[in-house]
């Protein structure tokens, strides 16, 4: 197979180039800024309509932050691969002998950076709209949680996005494939964020074990993605 030719330096260089390319595409097209972030915000407002109670909203705020993140991930992954498949760019990268692992890591990093921005905005929205309590002590836990969770989401999103890329009907297939897999992230990140916000009087220290789950998930799927991405694309 072609990805045995370049060494690990090639993988890292490719990853850096792909990530920079994806972020440059975003900086110039502003799809995240002008479309995905407003979408996520309107989802947060809609949750408030559906639940219709300040007390309930305050209690479920952490879960809603991560649920809105999951919905946005679907849109962002579709976008991330629409860029690649539009002009057959992904096929050309592969036929040029670019290592698949490098492409995977690059796209995953770019997605992770964009997800971090999204989560920061959603946490802010939860504080403003749902009266979530943000403290500096919980902030450390929150940032670590967000890093681990977005890493896991980006890995799974890139992997399944690559799987669905180029296939007919991928828009409807991606949510079906992706949502069951990311259930552990929703559970872990929600519980950890509850501790960080102090929802229902949960102590901050109770949040750290959940972080373990998120880290395990992120590591497992990053490795699985780096290994499996090549076979998925080599068709």
């Amino acid at each position: 197979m072609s990805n045995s030719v370049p060494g690990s330096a090639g993988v890292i260089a490719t990853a850096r180039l792909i990530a920079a390319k994806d972020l440059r595409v975003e900086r110039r097209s502003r799809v995240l800024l002008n479309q995905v972030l407003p979408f996520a915000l309107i989802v947060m407002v809609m949750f408030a309509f559906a639940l219709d109670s300040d007390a309930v909203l305050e209690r479920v705020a952490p879960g809603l932050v991560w649920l809105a993140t999951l919905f946005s991930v679907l849109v962002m992954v579709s976008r991330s691969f629409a860029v690649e498949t539009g002009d057959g760019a992904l096929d050309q990268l592969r036929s040029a002998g670019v290592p698949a692992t490098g492409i995977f890591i690059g796209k995953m990093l770019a997605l992770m950076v964009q997800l971090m921005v999204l989560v920061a905005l959603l946490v802010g929205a939860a504080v403003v709209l749902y009266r979530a309590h943000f403290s500096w002590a919980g902030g450390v836990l929150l940032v670590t949680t967000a890093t681990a969770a977005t890493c896991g989401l980006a890995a799974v999103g890139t992997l399944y996005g690559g799987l669905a890329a180029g296939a007919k009907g991928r828009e409807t297939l991606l949510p079906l494939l992706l949502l069951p897999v990311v259930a552990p992230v929703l559970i872990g990140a929600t519980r950890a964020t509850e501790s960080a916000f102090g929802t229902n009087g949960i102590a901050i220290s109770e949040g750290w074990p959940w972080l373990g789950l998120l880290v395990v998930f992120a590591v497992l799927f990053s490795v699985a993605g780096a290994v499996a991405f090549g076979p998925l694309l080599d068709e």
Partner: protein
Amino acid sequence: MNTSMSKHSPRDRVTGTPFTRGLGVVILAGITLLIILAIFVSPADVNQGESVRIMYAHVPGAWLAYLAFVVTGISSVAYLWKRTRSLTWDRIAGASAEVGVLFMGISLVTGSLWGRITWGTYWTWDARLTTTAFLFVTYIGYLAVRGLGGTHQQRARRSAVLALLAVLEIPLVHFSVQLWNTLHQEASVAGRGTDVEMDGLMLFTLFLGVVVFTLMYVWLVLHRQRSLALDDMLDDSGLDNALTARRAEAQGVAR
């Protein structure tokens, strides 16, 4: 179908063999015996009464669904491993997943009905139940990916990788739901009474159910695997037929 496959011998066009016919007869006899034992002969449960009879369909169904997904996983590995690579493994994986989804659906429905009668609720957020539901959805997604199109090899590789990812996903989901559950729910209904003493005849009926369902699984997978092979052959011959037709057209123009 018969006309388009004319270049293959008639034996290729059927999915039954003497073995599967014999197996089918054994299964029919087994099902008859199972129904008689499960509904009429075996005793009612002390606590659950007549509703315990759901168990004879529910437990074998669930066992089979998990067996089917293990077979899908193993066949996917066999396909991805270069030395054993063959589209037959891919078709076994696909056939097994289809049968597994069917039986998982049956066990989820019978399980929730049974739960309604004995626990008073259709659903509980027990780790085993939730994992089963996730497994169900995951393999529905797997079947959708199999239907994406492309060449047979593309389909085989894509779905084999996906099946292996599902093997990674399911323990994680199970573990995280368990973690979530132990902190938020004190007692889990499904875990209760696992070490009950069972009547000998009930145990035998359950055992018979597992055996009959497993044979049924083998029968279904063998047939489905062969019909998938016929599907693939039809795809290939469709292309050949089109090529022959175009060539004939081109010759007609040349003359």
